[in-house]
């Protein structure tokens, strides 16, 4: 079969349910990304706790590390399946995208596959190896879990960075030719800030969510060393990551301003190209020159407006703008909360006592997830109507198969069930007596 015939076999199709296909994909990401945060950040916190046990001999750290490692494994198991579903959906929903560009970005997923494999192997050794491996060896088996969590997300984000800022190929008759997969994935000016932004977000989400759970116990009056230690580790991680994220976010916004001006314009619903563009904060507060200042660090800089491209080439501005503002607002609040925590921790060598702090800390966990999702929506809905920015439209990537609403509804029901199940299992694990994890010589870790 000649090449151009193959390419034309993946020409545009009629798909009545494009929006549903996008929503189904988005739903699967919303389910997966918080689990990724735990996959990236949790191993480091667990290994840190174990390392503190080695360093200080304090049994509370050991109990914490053992307990957390079981939660880590349960979340990883759920993350494995939600991640597998994503790779199924890439083919099921977007065969046009895969058929045309699989050879450009696929290398990223190949490398990610290896990372994921290593993570799966060592997470099993780590969790089932308590008391079975020499203590030092056990601590060391945690390191590959941390590293492969980072590299795995790195490779996936390389693909996303490429979708937003594609390079490393040339289009000819609907085919990608002259493909340079290394350059496409790793020679991309989007990769660094997307990676760092996600990585720091992982610590914010994992740290604040753990902080919510143990903060709840603190408010209920449980000030045990176990709870205090859990709070110290998780909130310290989140509190250092949150202010750093403001700087990384600024870096990301400046890069978007340069490479995807239409996405930036939709952050602020900027219709016309403006010199010294203002920034609107709902409801109705306008700060002159602020958008130019934020996007280019220059109050007089010119910001390109939405009307510079035809309406068909603009993203759904309302959603993008609302998500962007949500992310920025929550991120700033989290950074403020972080400052309070760090001050008390360093200056007074204890946890904050104020009830208001703990109410805020309990809210911070779910809010950080909202910010995470809002950030994902900002960058991915902001990429629309393109699946490969400026090269392939999402409507040209979608499947021609029927039944998308049925698949969407089925998956929604299944995910709702899984969410309920995850909450149930985490509560069950948390309700187990701590002594179970405190003993140094039990044969009972097998039922973890």
């Amino acid at each position: 079969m000649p090449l151009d015939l193959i390419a034309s076999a993946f020409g545009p199709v009629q798909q009545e349910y494009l929006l549903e296909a996008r929503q189904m994909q988005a739903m699967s990401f919303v389910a997966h990304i918080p689990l990724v945060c735990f996959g990236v950040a949790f191993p480091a916190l667990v290994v840190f706790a174990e390392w503190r046990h080695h360093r200080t001999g304090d049994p509370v750290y050991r109990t914490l590390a053992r307990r957390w490692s079981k939660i880590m494994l349960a979340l990883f198991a759920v993350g494995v399946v939600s991640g597998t579903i994503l790779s199924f959906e890439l083919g099921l929903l977007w065969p046009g995208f895969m058929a045309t560009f699989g050879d450009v970005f696929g290398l990223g997923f190949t490398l990610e596959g290896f990372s994921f494999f290593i993570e799966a192997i060592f997470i099993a050794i780590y969790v089932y190896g308590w008391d079975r491996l020499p203590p030092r060896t056990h601590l060391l088996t945690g390191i590959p879990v941390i590293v492969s969590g980072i590299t795995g997300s790195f490779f996936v984000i390389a693909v996303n960075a490429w979708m937003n800022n594609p390079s490393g190929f040339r289009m000819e008759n609907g085919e990608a030719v002259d493909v340079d997969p290394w350059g496409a994935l790793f020679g991309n000016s989007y990769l660094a800030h997307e990676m760092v932004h996600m990585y720091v977000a992982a610590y914010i989400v994992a740290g604040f969510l753990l902080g919510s759970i143990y903060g709840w116990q603190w408010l209920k009056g449980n000030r045990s060393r176990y709870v205090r230690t859990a709070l110290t580790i998780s909130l310290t991680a989140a509190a250092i990551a949150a202010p750093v994220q403001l700087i990384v976010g600024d870096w990301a916004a400046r890069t978007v301003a340069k490479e995807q001006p239409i996405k930036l314009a939709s952050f602020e619903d900027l219709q016309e190209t403006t010199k010294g563009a203002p920034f609107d904060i709902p409801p109705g507060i306008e700060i002159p020159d602020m958008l130019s200042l934020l996007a280019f660090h220059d109050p007089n800089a010119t910001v390109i407006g939405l009307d510079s491209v035809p309406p068909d080439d603009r993203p759904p501005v309302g959603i993008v703008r609302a998500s962007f503002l949500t992310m920025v607002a929550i991120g700033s609040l989290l950074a403020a909360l972080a400052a309070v925590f760090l001050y008390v921790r360093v200056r007074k060598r204890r946890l904050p006592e104020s009830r208001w702090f703990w109410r805020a800390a309990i809210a911070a966990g779910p809010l950080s997830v909202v910010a995470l999702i809002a950030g994902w929506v900002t960058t991915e809905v902001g990429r629309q109507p393109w699946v490969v920015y400026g090269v392939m439209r999402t409507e040209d990537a979608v499947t021609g198969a029927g039944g998308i609403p049925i698949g969407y509804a089925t998956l929604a029901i299944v995910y709702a069930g899984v969410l309920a199940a995850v909450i149930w299992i985490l509560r069950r694990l948390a309700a187990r007596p701590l002594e179970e994890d405190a003993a140094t010589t039990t044969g009972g870790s097998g039922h973890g």
Partner: protein
Amino acid sequence: MAEIPIVLILVGLAAYTVLGGADFGAGLWELTARGERGSALRDHTHRSMAPVWEANHVWLIFVLVMAWTCYPEAFGSIASTLTIPLFVAGVGIILRGAAYALRAGTTTPREEGAISLLFALSSILTPFALGLVVGGIASGRVPVGNAQGDEITSWWNGTSLLIGVLAVATAAYLAAVYLAADARRIGSDDVAEAFRTRALVAGLVAGALAAAGPFILSSDAPDIYDGLTSGAGLVALLASGVAGVAALALVVTRRYGAARLVAAAAVAAIVAGWGLAQRPEILPGLTIDEAAASDTTITAVLIGFAVGLLILAPSLAYLFRLLLTGRFDPATAPQPGPAPADAAAAAADPTAHSSLRTTLITGAVTALGAGITFVSNGPLRSIGVALMLGGAFACFLAVASLDEADPPAVPFPTPER
């Protein structure tokens, strides 16, 4: 060059059938181990499979990823035509993973029974659906293009059903052999015998299905039938048959370790036979050469693959060595090793906790890095980012390791919990 990735894909598929299959089969056997009486069998199954569960399933990801990177048009065609069985397999994988994770939290027999049923049913559904997919491809029912094949008959046909059922039977057989070997290693002879019986039943069923295969293929998928009954395809088919019978004989004589290897060889041979029989076409009218990505992409994938394998192989060997030498077994005594510092000595050691000075220095480095990142572009910004992240990491270590102000007021573990 164009054929190297498909060889790797088939190797991955064989590995998934053997390792992931054993995992599915283990789930299936939960159906036969209900109630109190079966709890020894269920516990044994979970203990044996738990440490390798995630790793066994990464093979599927590997197959998918290699397929879409190296044969993108073929992948797009397959995924869009065989949407229904692939989606069903996906749902099966979710339910299975959820049931697996949930088992850790069950406390009553009723809860455990419900979870175990869900686990068993999804363990049957998933390999069956994936078998339907393989049957659709093998019988040439996936035309090139976006959803160009029939959305039902492409996977509901004689070949698909044969391979679907065969996949389930093979999984059950492999699992029973594996679990019998594992039970004998830890000295549970009752459990070993129970799984030996299961292995023999499943082996006979799988063998009967395999023997019926050629009759179905000859009418439903003549191209594959011709490929498997001549030349290299025939050699692979016969090798698979011989290995299958030999594996069964080894189970009869209770040589499970050897049976496991020979059964794996039978699976590998039939997967190889499929590849040989279908060669050179990947889909009707589309040869492997035409479907393959450019040499640059394939070279890149192979380099990535080689580097990945260098790290993966020793890691996987380490995991299986720990598992197969019984290091994760319940009876294993804790390892002697240098005990961590005892609490009293550590409390007296001033270096066990960080100092305010370290905290402030690391904080200052983070702030400096943040400042550079904020004001600069290009290479200087990279330095700023590196300083900021390195500083943040060190700052976390310092802040989280600061000593607490008050000595612990509540003893640990706490009585009120």
